[in-house]
Structure formats: C-alpha cells, structure tokens
C-alpha cells in the first residue's frame, strides 16, 4: 500500500470506512441500473384483435400482424420501429416513418394496429423527449 493512502486510511474510523463502502456500492449499483436500462426498451404491438405482443427494441424483427383491413407489417431495425400498412386509406401510420424514443407511438387506426415504444417495466416516458404532455387534434 502506498504510504500516503495508508496514512490517510489510518486517520478514519472503521465505521467511516463502512459508510464509505456503502456509498461507493450505492453509486456503482445506480450506474449499473442506469446503463442497464438503456437497452431495455420494448416495442408494444397491439393488433386488431387487441392482442399485445412485446419485442425488445434492440432485436431486429419483421413481423406481419393481423389488421382489420388486411396484414400490417411491423419492422424493428437498428433500435427503431416502423409500421407498413397494406390497405389503409391514408397510410398515416406508414407516413409516420420510424420511431425510436420511449413514449413514441405509431398507429394505423383503420387497421386497428398500434405500436408504442416503452421503457423498462410499465412504460415510463422521459418528459424532455416531448415538449407536450398531450396534443389535442
């Protein structure tokens, strides 16, 4: 042990060392938790039958789900997701393009298909991602 550090450690109580250790563990734990969460976003897919499918955003996927007007393709690629409608009148969902942030939604209402990106667990949303809590249309 280096002489400076040894001298420094000698001048603190044992209980203080434990306290320092607990604080250090707290920081390490929080770091792991925060970094670990960045890869845990999930894609929630609701099809026309109100069936819910979950898929990790970090795993690529090309899936055909049942829509009221015919099949609708859902593509997950490179940590983003998009919806490709087949027979929707205005193709609003297709025109929305890729979404990639927690809380974002793309949907084909006539098809009855909704896709949302959620964070870990029950779907948290980072407020800074969106300027508004809701947009009335």
């Amino acid at each position, binding site marked *: 042990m280096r002489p400076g550090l040894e001298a420094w450690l000698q001048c603190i109580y044992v209980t*203080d060392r434990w306290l320092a250790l607990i604080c250090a563990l707290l920081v390490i734990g*929080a770091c792991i938790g925060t970094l670990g*969460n960045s890869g845990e976003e999930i894609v929630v897919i609701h099809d026309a039958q109100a069936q819910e499918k979950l898929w990790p955003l970090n795993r690529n996927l090309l899936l055909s789900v049942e829509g009221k007007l015919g099949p609708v393709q859902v593509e997950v690629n490179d940590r983003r997701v998009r919806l490709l409608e087949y027979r929707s009148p205005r193709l609003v969902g297709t025109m929305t393009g890729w979404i990639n942030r927690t809380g974002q939604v793309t949907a084909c*209402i006539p098809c009855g298909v909704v896709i949302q990106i959620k964070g870990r667990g*029950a779907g948290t*949303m*980072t407020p800074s991602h969106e300027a508004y809590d809701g947009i*009335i*249309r």
Partner: protein
Amino acid sequence: MKGGLVMRDLHFKPIVPLLLLLAFLGFWLLWKNPSHQELHATTRLAMGTLVSVSTWGATEAEDENGVNWVFSRIKEVESWASKQIPSSLVYKINHSPKGTLLEVPEELVTVVHTGLEIRNLSGGAFDPGLGYLVDLWGFGNGVAEEGKIPETQKIAAWLEERNKHHDFGIQWVKTANGGMAIQWGGFAYELDLGGIAKGYAMDLAMESLKLSGIPNALIVAGGDMIIAGSKGGKPWRIGIQHPRDHNKVMAFAEITGDMAMSTSGDYERFFMANGERQHHILDPKTGKPSRSGLISVSIQTSTSIKADALSTAVFVLGMKEGKALIEKLDGVEGMLVHENGERWKSPGFKGQWLEGS
C-alpha cells in the same frame, strides 16, 4: 486525551466531503434512472382513435391498474353507444321500426339528455340524431375512404322528414319500474353519439383513475382531453394541433387542476370533392358539412361531455354566433380559428397562440 481527539477529528475531516459527494452522486443517478420517473404514459386504440393516458406520481402497479380501469370504462361506453356495433343499444334503437319503445339505461339517458340540452342552447347546431346523414356521407366508420358526395335527393328527403316535426323525434317514457324508455322517431333521428359519447367516456375514465388512487392524470383521445391535478406541482403542457399542418402546434396551454378540453376541426376526417373539403362536422340545417368558415374550435369547461358537444355546436354556428354562445355560458371558454385567418379566444381561455403558427 482531549488533544488526541481533536487531532483525530482534524484528520477525519477530508472524508466528509467525499462521503457527501458519493451520496449526492448516488441519489442523482437513482433519480435519473428511468424506473424512478414518475410520469407514465400508455397509448391504446379505443373509440376509433388513439387514447393516451398519462399519470403522475403513481407506482408502476398503480398506473397499470388505473390504465386498465380507464380502458375498461371506455370499452363499456363504446359497447352501448357505438352505432357500428350490432350488439350496442344505439344500433338496436336505430334499427328498430319507427315508434318502437325500448328501455334504456341511465347512462344513455344522461348522454342523450345532455346532447339535447346543447342542441337547445345552440339553436340546433349540435344534434345527436344525425346518424343517417353521417352514414350517407361515409363518415360512419371513422374515415371516408373514397370521396363521394351523397345524392341531393337523399339529403333533401332527410331534411323534409326533419322539418315535419317541431320537436326532436325522440320521446322519453317512464317505465313501470321507474326506469326510462326511448321512443324512436325514425330515420331522420337516427342516433349518432359520436360527438358526445367520447366526452362522456372521458369523464368516466378520469373518475375511475381518481377512484383507483391516481389524482394526477391526463387523458387525450383525438380531439378530447381531460386533466386532473398536476405533474408534481408543475402544469400539464397541452398542444393544440394546427388545422392546416398536422405536424405543427398552433397554440399551447399549461393547465393545473381539473379541466376538460375538446377541439373540433375540419381536418381530421374529410375528403376533397368539387374543390371543397367535405368534412365530418355536418350542419343539421343543410345536411351537409358545415360551411361556417371556422376551421378549428377548442372549448374548455368542467366536463368532457359538454366540451365535446359544445365544440361541435360552436363550429357549426360560426365565429359571431359561436362567440356569443361561449360568452353566454358560465364556466365555458373557447378558442376559435376562421379560414380567413381571424382568431379569437375568450378572456378566460387557458392557453396562448404560438408565434408563427
């Protein structure tokens, strides 16, 4: 001995800021951790539109429970108020022979009564009995896929039938067990509760959230919105869509406390024909899309059911009469946009125009 203690304390001092720094870092990282964010948002499809429920301050389990309640209440309302679902009560009423007496639940009585109240207040600008016309124009299923203006004779026949009666063609009859029955007046009074039942469902949904222990929430369903409480003391931030650019917000409001807001516009469900925008807000006096000149109307009031019906009524009335109606009613505020660029908002309307919108 005393001197030794003083020395130890002096040596100990460098650890204190280090511990404080570590503790601060720990709490900061935990706070930044998304699982500790207090805002939860869920979006699902219901009542033919996207319904978003945001809650503040609830645990994940409380949020999930509350959100399930919300969608279950909305589904309940949809199950009797939809005119497309063959098992719904409204469908049954609309498909019964004229004059049929049908016992109805209190909820339907409340919605139709409120609709008729707004109809009277607005001189007929809002009408819960436009079902036949809505189908004729192709808006019955949410989106008119192919733009096609209905035959003039069919609209004329509807207007003629309507003009035969001074009263609205629905009669209420008290049943022997104290309930209510509805006597339907035929095709000219086919119920379409699309302009009011969603508002009613929103009121019930918010009530469910509060009962499940969530006092701070925001529910948005297309043009309808209901708010309760705040986001940890901060207001909910609401954007109002630009009527001619769906990627833009033309106004915003910061709202704390209980309030409902509804927007009616000619931009959500429409098709172009004869060089005109054929939209879903029909004028009961002409049987055609309203040509009042207004393109967006937002109403703020205490309940979503009233906000929903009043925004349609004001849209049909136009700028002058719409303003007069808003000013006449207590606890009702409005924001109107005319196609000629004219804008107006009542003094108590919570919200402001965005520059350049």
